């Protein structure tokens, strides 16, 4: 997509709600991430996403530790045999209730520097416990009862680079849309007709390996054989055409930071940093780290801060810190964000083998200089479990939505098509909500009916002096547009018939002050 078109697309989707409501930019008097996004859009096309898949189901509850509920967490009947002692948990700046696994000093540093956002309790409704199915759900971004043959990142890239790979490379896009470092192509990167990614293990030998472009006449075989042959030829052709680009990019730059040794993830991120700094225009990089299926011996019984899980988390944390340092020194940190995901978290209650069985929600990490909310959501409530599992706070597709809209600047339509429907955007890239306004007392404002189904009316004497803005914010912190009218001078009527059911925060700015009320929409 040309940058100009791209800006128009992005701008229209972001500006419309602001202008149509007729309140002007003032409606966003507080530091607005929307406005900031617009400013940032100028070099939007340089933005890169790095996806780190933690294969096997990562134990989120030992990674991000609920310091506010340590008595339950360390209870022998809960997960006493694997619990991280409170004294060992790493502390987080301004967030005293949440700690990190002691092996994650790198992540702690990133968090305290404002470069790490922790999204708590990520899952989806009716989670699946099969590695298989759960990975497919995360990668294809579907509901638990749907299936799709393509991955979310693949669909996004397919929209962005229509006709790939047949009509590529082009002058505007001389590089592959996605690069996976590693082995087998990930489902996340599957576009509607095939992978959007080039897989490579080592850029230096890549060009030598791929050989020449096949130039024999195409097969006349149809059916299954024809499909396989076409696929292989296409893979070969794309590898050859990108081999030179990749070699050049890798040759143009070198890593400036020191990476940890004997760290496979670090080795892979190192290649990525080099390719980005070397000028690759690739949008998505994908790496995988295995071993998280810790049914047994997740910790060493005598010291729960050591063992398999600690080693995995240290590998992850050290690698990401080195990568982030490298990006900073290469002066490309502002162009890159990374995210981690795992097909599921693990059971809140540990098993007898110093391990944990398959569970549900877990935190996701989003890292980079662009993150704004240090923590999205709260520590999972350990006293409110669902069949021994942690309850969900954020749907993983809300995080994808945040990456698509707030990071890649995708318009809502593309975002919805990519994720199959519109998801509220997680506030990873938006400033955390600061509760400073004085809430009006019940006597000063009256909201009815509440819950509402079609219209809701707010009555208050404060309204008579004039309304500066009316905002409706859903529980994910997303601002929604709402049609309003003024039936009387002391009331505002809102049409909520198009809103999804759920809880909202209503914020009405008046000359006398800010009115906030909780509004429920039910049908």
């Amino acid at each position, binding site marked *: 997509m040309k940058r100009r078109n791209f800006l128009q697309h992005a701008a229209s989707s972001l500006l419309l709600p602001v202008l149509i409501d007729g309140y002007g930019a003032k409606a966003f008097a507080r530091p607005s991430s929307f406005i900031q996004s617009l400013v940032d859009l100028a070099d939007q096309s340089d933005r890169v996403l790095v996806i780190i898949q933690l*294969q*096997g189901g990562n134990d989120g509850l030992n990674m991000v530790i609920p310091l506010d509920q340590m008595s339950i967490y360390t209870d022998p009947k809960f997960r006493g045999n694997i619990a991280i002692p409170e004294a060992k948990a790493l502390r987080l700046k301004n967030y005293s209730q949440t700690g990190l696994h002691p092996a994650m000093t790198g992540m702690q540093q990133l968090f305290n520097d404002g470069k790490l956002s922790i999204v708590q309790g990520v899952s989806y409704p009716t989670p699946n*416990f*099969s*590695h*298989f*199915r759960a990975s*497919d759900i995360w990668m*294809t971004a579907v509901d638990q009862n749907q299936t799709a*043959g*393509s991955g979310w990142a693949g669909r996004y890239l397919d929209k962005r680079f229509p006709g790939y790979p047949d009509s590529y490379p082009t002058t505007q896009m001389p590089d592959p849309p996605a690069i*996976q470092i590693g*082995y*087998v*192509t990930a*489902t996340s990167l*599957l576009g509607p007709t095939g*992978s959007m990614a*080039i*897989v*490579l*293990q080592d850029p230096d030998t*890549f060009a*030598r*390996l*791929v*050989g*020449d472009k*096949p130039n*024999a*006449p195409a*097969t*006349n*075989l149809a059916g*299954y*054989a024809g*499909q*396989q*042959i*076409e*696929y*292989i*030829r296409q*893979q*070969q052709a*794309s*590898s050859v055409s*990108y*081999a030179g680009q990749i070699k050049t990019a890798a040759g143009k730059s070198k890593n400036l930071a020191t990476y940890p040794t004997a760290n496979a993830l670090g080795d892979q991120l190192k290649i990525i940093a080099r390719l980005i700094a070397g000028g690759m225009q690739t949008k998505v990089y994908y790496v995988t780290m*295995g071993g998280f*299926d810790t*049914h*047994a011996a997740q910790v060493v019984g005598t010291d729960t801060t050591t063992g398999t899980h600690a080693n995995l988390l240290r590998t992850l944390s050290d690698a990401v810190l080195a990568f982030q340092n490298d990006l900073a020194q290469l002066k490309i940190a502002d162009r890159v964000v990374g995210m981690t995901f795992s097909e599921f978290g693990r059971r809140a209650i540990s*098993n*007898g*083998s110093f*391990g944990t*069985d*398959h569970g549900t929600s877990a935190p996701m990490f989003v890292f980079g200089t662009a993150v704004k909310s240090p923590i999205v959501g709260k520590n999972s409530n350990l006293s409110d479990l669902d*069949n021994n599992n942690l309850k969900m706070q954020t749907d993983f597709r809300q995080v994808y939505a945040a990456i698509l809209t707030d990071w890649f600047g995708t318009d809502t339509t593309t975002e919805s098509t990519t994720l199959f429907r519109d998801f509220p955007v997680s506030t990873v890239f938006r400033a955390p909500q600061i509760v400073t306004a004085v809430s009006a007392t019940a006597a000063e404002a009256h909201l009815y009916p509440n819950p509402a189904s079609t219209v809701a009316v707010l009555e208050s004497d404060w309204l008579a002096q004039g309304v500066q803005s009316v905002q409706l914010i859903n529980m994910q912190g997303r601002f929604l547009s709402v049609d309003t009218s003024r039936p009387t001078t002391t009331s505002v009527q809102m049409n909520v018939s198009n809103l999804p059911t759920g809880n909202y925060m209503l914020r009405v700015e008046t000359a006398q002050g800010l009115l906030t009320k909780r509004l429920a929409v039910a049908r």
Partner: protein
Amino acid sequence: MALLDAYTNPLTADQVAYLLRRATFGPTADQVKTLTGQTAAQIITKLLADQPTPPPPLDLATGKPFHDQPFDTANAGKFNAYLNYWWANLMLNQPVSLLEKMTLFWSNHFVTNFSTVNDYRFMYRYNTLLRQYALGNFKAFTVAVTQDPAMLRFLNGNQNIVGRANENYARELQELFTIGRNGGYTETDVREAARVLTGWTDVSYRSATTTPVSSTFRLNQHDKTDKTFSATYQNTVIKGRSTATAGLDELNDLITMILSNVETPRYICRQLYRWFINSDITPAVETDFIQPLAEIFRKANFEIKPVLTALFQSQHFYDEAIRGGMIKSPTELVIGTFRFWGLQAPDPAQNITAFYQIGNYIFARITEQQQQILNPPTVFGWTAYYQTGYYQQWINSTTLGLRGFFGDALTTNALKLNGKVVIDSIVYAKTLSNPADAGVLVANIVSQLLGVPLDKSQLDFLTDTVLLNSIPRYEWTGEWNDYIQAPNDAAKKQAVQMKLTAFLQYIFRMAEYQVI
């Protein structure tokens, strides 16, 4: 059930080659010639014939077996490598038989891997179990593999004890090994099955003092209460027992219960279908192939041979639309290529160095191409058999490059296995009907090497552009005949050899070479 009806015509050379590419790691030209004209039923009898139990791997240094000795930490890495090379060579040297292809199938079904188990003696025992039951009875197999020490470690069955159940094996047993994840089992069934399976553990793990490797049942760690299953299993109650044989008795009940669900034989038949025929299970294939095949399986009391017989002699299997629809796995590519060119590993008792050189070379190639035997990446096995895209999972920029690179290496003199180059292109050309005619030569080579037919424009391109680099065809005839008349003239030999080598390298990089 027309799809499953027997195909009774004598098989053509192309059909024999196709059958052997799918059912084994690939044929030689001679094997194809010998079996052409036989019926599918005749060849399948041969494919299913009993094979001798292979002798165990030997230590390169001492020439003695190591699997029955105490664990040797210092040599563990080496011994594990020998085990891998040994299995690779069994695949390479296998006569016309389904045994090793099925052993590999089961290693992708009842998965364990070395990365987790980490004791070469356990892996040897496990691999031997797979081979022992590969063509045997699935029910007995499932009961045996549940108690297998490598499996007990891989899926934590050894830590599954009363009051502190570890559900890992109980879940995978149902999700992946038997009824399948759409089979309707519930979370309750996972929990109850885990309780049935409490009490087993492995013996002699990484022990420097004890042999042999085995497993045992500890009654005091067993959950002796009744286990109640969901409606998927007719609300079966497996009676809790407290005798010494409680573990095995309850395990037998559990497997009988799971196998009695109609989904279980179907699930296994779908796995076989994806392994041997096609990844696309259409509704017609499901109703007219999978379901009747599952019925054969069930009626045969879960014997595996009747299923394979029906599968490989079905009309559906010989449908032209199926041929070429699978992408070769790394083992099929590497071992199949070696087998075609007649490379065999020598008897290790005679030449153990060459034996392991060949095994090592194969193992390195299949590992870099992402099919490390005895070490599938996860409990699901290799992604090519379950993930969207299926066999296409084997192919990406890097593995495609490595596949081509492998072909390049075989045709140059640089690689010598057991002291010999693998491919002598001139010797090969002389085995063909009319090597002096470039068009005939190319057509012959292509029909032997490729799993799918080429059309005339492709053959012409291969002849005129790839083999001859646009010189007229009669020039080839002249050069070939010159060489035949003066076979010791190095210059004349090189003139034809260079062209043939480059031609074969091109063939090995063709997409058509990657499919069977």
